Every structure is written in structure tokens, then in C-alpha cells.
């Protein structure tokens, strides 16, 4: 089982790359976000399944997916980027039928360099569209382990997400499917490819997506 980084308990100031920002609005500070600090015991598989490797894998990747989405909700952008391998890609296809991001339009097709541009943008004090109150909440479920990628041996896992976003006074809902290609490294699981298919990705976008979904 990979060791998981503990989320910081203390709230650092906003607009730092690695730490959970305290949200503020013109009218004052929003209530501090409650940190989800997983107790180490929860990371272990229950005793009854202790020797069932499939169950352990299932448990491990589920925890990984939950933690990854929490990094987005906590706006810990650098930690989120660090979950990708050096050649990792975050991809949201423009067309659900697409099988590659190479040479076709995509809503997102970002390597770590582009992810860094996006992170630095939202952290810049003049990212005007991000100044209003803004927050998200992801729920991940329906975690299914698929056959390994025959080429790379990566663990492939499909899950479903539902994300609610509040920006200024507007609430938006996004839902769909993730497919993660995960690599086991000395530093735990890393994402080689995350494919995000939003079920409402084909509709007109009222406003745009600011960060990864």
C-alpha cells in the first residue's frame, strides 16, 4: 500500500500552489474548509480480505481516486499535478468517440507543462474570472477495475464522478466518467492518463471550465 500524504491541518493563505487556500470573498472570509484527514487505519483492507489482492487493489485505487478529487476541491493544484507521471496526460475529449487526443480537438489535452500554465494562471492575482467566490465538490463512485493495459501493464480503472461547482451565485453540475491509467511507482500510484468524459460535455457551455474536472 502506498503511503498517502497527509493533508495539512492548518489553513495556509490563498493562492499558494501546494497548500489548501482559505477562500475569501469581498464580504469577508468564507468558513474554513474542513480537511478530510484519513486515519491510517482506514487505508488498510479489512482483515477478512487481507489476502485478496484484487480487493486490496480495488481499495487502493478507490482511495487514490477519492484523494485525487479532494485535491481539486481543496485547490491543491501542485499536489494534484504531482499525481501524474512525468509524461502524464489529462484528457477531456471533445467527442466521446475519440480514442486519442493526438490531432483531434479536445476540451482538455494537457501534459504537465500545460497543467502548470493552468495552475499558475489561477494563482495569478489578476485571474479576473477566478476572483469571485468559487468552489467545487466532487463525488466519485462506481469504481470498476478493468483489464490491465496490455501495452503498458497499467492498472486501468473506470469510475463515475459528479461535480458541483459554485461560482459567484451560480451552481453548475458536471457528471461523467473517468478512466485512469495508473502506474505503480516507488512514490505510490501515478496517473499516466486520465480520460474524463463529461456527459454534458456536448452541450453548450454556459461559461467555461476553469480547471480540471
Amino acid at each position, binding site marked *: 500500500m502506498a503511503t498517502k500524504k497527509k493533508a495539512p491541518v492548518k489553513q495556509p493563505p490563498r493562492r499558494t500552489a501546494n497548500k489548501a487556500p482559505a477562500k475569501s470573498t469581498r464580504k469577508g472570509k468564507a468558513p474554513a474548509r474542513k480537511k478530510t484527514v484519513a486515519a491510517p487505519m482506514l487505508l488498510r483492507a479489512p482483515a477478512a480480505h487481507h489476502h485478496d489482492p484484487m480487493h486490496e487493489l480495488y481499495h487502493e485505487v478507490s482511495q487514490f481516486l477519492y484523494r485525487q478529487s479532494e485535491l481539486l476541491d481543496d485547490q491543491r493544484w501542485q499536489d494534484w499535478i504531482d499525481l501524474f507521471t512525468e509524461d502524464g496526460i489529462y484528457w477531456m475529449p471533445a467527442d466521446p468517440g475519440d480514442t486519442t487526443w493526438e490531432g483531434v480537438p479536445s476540451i482538455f489535452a494537457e501534459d504537465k507543462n500545460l497543467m502548470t500554465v493552468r495552475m499558475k494562471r489561477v494563482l495569478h492575482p489578476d485571474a479576473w474570472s477566478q476572483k469571485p467566490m468559487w468552489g467545487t465538490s466532487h463525488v466519485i463512485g462506481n469504481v470498476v477495475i478493468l483489464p490491465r493495459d496490455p501495452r503498458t501493464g497499467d492498472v486501468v480503472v473506470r469510475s463515475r464522478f459528479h461535480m458541483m461547482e459554485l461560482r459567484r451565485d451560480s451552481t453548475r453540475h458536471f457528471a461523467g466518467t473517468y478512466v485512469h491509467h495508473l502506474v505503480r511507482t516507488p512514490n505510490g500510484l501515478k496517473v499516466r492518463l486520465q480520460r474524463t468524459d463529461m456527459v454534458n460535455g456536448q452541450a453548450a457551455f454556459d461559461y467555461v471550465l*476553469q480547471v480540471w474536472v
Partner: protein
Amino acid sequence: MLHEKVPNLAKYVEPDRVRKEVYADPDVFQLEMERIHERVWIYCGHESQVRKPGDFYTVQIGRQPMVMVRGQDRKVNVLYNRCPHRGAMICGDRHGNTGEFFRCSYHAWTFNHDGSLKNIPMMQSGYEGTRWGRDNPDCNMKRAARVASYRGFVFASLAADGPTLEEFLGPGKIAFDDICDRSPEGEVEVVPNCFRMIQNSNWKIFLENQLDALHPSVTHQSTGRAARDVELEIEKRTGKAPLSYHMLSAFATVTIDKWDNFQTLNYPNGHCILTGYMGLRPKDPDTLEYERVLAKAYGEKRKEEILTTNIHHVLLYPGLSVQSPLQQLRAVRPLGVDKTLTEIWHFRLKGAPEPIYRRALAYYNLVNSPATMINADDLENFWKCQQGLGSDGGDWVSFHRHYGRDLQKGDMIETAPGMGTSEAPMRNQMKAWAELMAKA
């Protein structure tokens, strides 16, 4: 009558300023749909969107739901998307193939691709002796009054009279010449993907922003700086960063003082050209290979003419912004006084090497996708403008920058040297607006 609801129309537009009602009054919006969008030439789509007979794409022209369809005779028709029987929309999908004819989902009336009636169930028994039947033209799907195409780009006008498409576009048609000439075959084809984004603001705010040479270094500072940081870091590591970083960093590295070195060329009917700034003619192997292909197709002299065409944006009033060197366009569909849809397409240059397409694709993904790091901040500004313009905090929108200093050359208005950020494009658009709105 609608125009009676807007009694002060003639006083709304002055050469250097415009009343807030122009952006915020729903009656003005209805009147401009009637007098502008439902009269002038509006972009419907590219012919390659409807390759096969029966292929259709729906499109909004002003308030009218229309459908562009390829006929059996290969002709592209533009029809009102409406069944003459009970008024139901014929095509419920945004695009598709309708087969050999349209068929209404309500009572199975069928129509040919040119809109003419094909059949009505119980035509004989149900309609004999009535004034409804094949000989009555009211039984057809109504056609757009005029449809015309320029180099594959299809436009429709819902008014029977008026200038031809080419007369209307005037020098603005260089947008299509430039994009097509950059292909060694002189043609482009659409990439079948349309990014659609809603702006919670009036349609004119978007058009005015397109040629606002001052805003990028302010509005897009955050993305430009972020991209510049990463660009420098990649250069340090590998010697050279992909052009896509330059596309983003140019928003910050081209600072306000430099923007004045660009130029806008303003034409009748509100059209305008912003000259180029991105330096999209690098000397990398891909570009050099592309230049060889172009030289082979056109000869050295013509190739140079094509590649030195100095365009960043061409704005074709009142609803199209074309970035020909990057093979993309944005069509503007007003949905309401404070709501606008943009439809964003990009194109392949037929016969050009793949890397040239990839360059356009990078821009399409980074700047024009629904996850854009550029438009995000534009949309925020547009929304803020719409909020402020609906208030009583002031009556006028100012277009005074470099007013009185532009150069009039025949019927073209050119910004003076060193005054590229002149608000001439906005003044020019509002002049066209006032002229169109004055015609009852």
C-alpha cells in the same frame, strides 16, 4: 409597432459614444434582430459541414431557427426549420442526415431538400377541395430569401433585397481568401467539431472586444504570464518551446505600448481587419516544408504574397470573427439582449502538411475550447459590462480613444501610425448599426 417602443433610436449613437440602451434594452434587441440579423448576410456554415445529400446543420439567424441542408442536386439550401402544417420544427437534432427527404415527426408531412412539399398523408382524401395542397406554395418549407457562398463559406439573408454577399462583405472577404489561399489547393475543410459557449452579455460586446487591441495585456495578463513562465522554463530545459506557448504568452509579452503599433482597417458595413502580431512564420522545419509545398502550388512570388498577408482577425459584422492565419472562426448567435452563443470552428488547409493543422489545433484547444484560459477572463469582463450597462450609474459607453485622429482613405478608416488601439472598430461598428437600424 416595435420601433415605436424605441422612440429615441436616432439619438442612441453618436460618432464617439453610444447609449447604454443599445446593449441593455430588450426592445432595442428585438428591433436589431428585425433590422440587422434578419436582413443582412449571416454566416450559416461551411459547405464541408454538409458533404452528402441530406446532411443538415441547424443554425439560428436572428430569432429564426433555420436549417442548412445539402440537396440531391448537391446545392446547399437554407430553410426555415418549420413545418407549414402546425409549425413544428422539422429537425430536432443539431445536425445529422435526413435521408432523401425531411419528414415531420408530428404528422409525417414530407419535404424535399429544397423545401418543396413532397407529400402529405391523405393528400387526396383529406385536402381535396381545400385551399391546401401541392399547388399552394405555403405548403412548402419556407426558404431563406437569399443564399450565397463565397469560397465554400455559406451565408443566408432573410431579406429579398439588399447588396449581394460579395458587395456586403466588401474588402472583408479577404478573410476567406486568406484562409483558403493558405491551402496549396485553395480550399479548406471543416473539422467536424463545434465548441459552443454562452456569454451572458449582449452580442455587440463580444464583437467590440474582438478588435480591442488594448484589452489583451490587461484581461489576459494572468494566462500570458503563466504561459511565459513555463515557456522560459521549457526553453531553458530543451532549447525551444512549442509555438503553442507563444500563442498564449503573446497576450502578456506584447505589452500595451506595443499594441499601438498594430493597425485596424475599418470598412463599410462594420467590417474590420486587425493586423497580425503573433509572428506565425517561424523558420522551423515544419514551416519551411509548408512553404515549399505552397511555392510548388503557387510559385515563389504568389507564395510570398499569401504568407505576408498581414491579418490577425477579420471581423465581419454583425456576427463573424475569422482568424484566417490560424484557420478558425467564431460565429455569434444572439439569444437575447444579455445572452449570446458563440460557435467556434476550425479548418484544415487541404493539401498542407499535418504540422500546420496541428498549429491551428493547438490554438483551437488552448484559446477556443470550453476550458480556455483566455476567454474565461473575457467572459468575466463581458458579464460585468452587461451588469453595469443595465444600471443607472451612467448613460453612455465611451469610444473616444484616438477619436478624430483616424485616417479616412476613401470609404476605409485606417488607424493612424502609433494609434493602433484607436476605438475606430467600435465606432465603425456602431456607425453600421445606426445605418441598419434607421431603415424601417
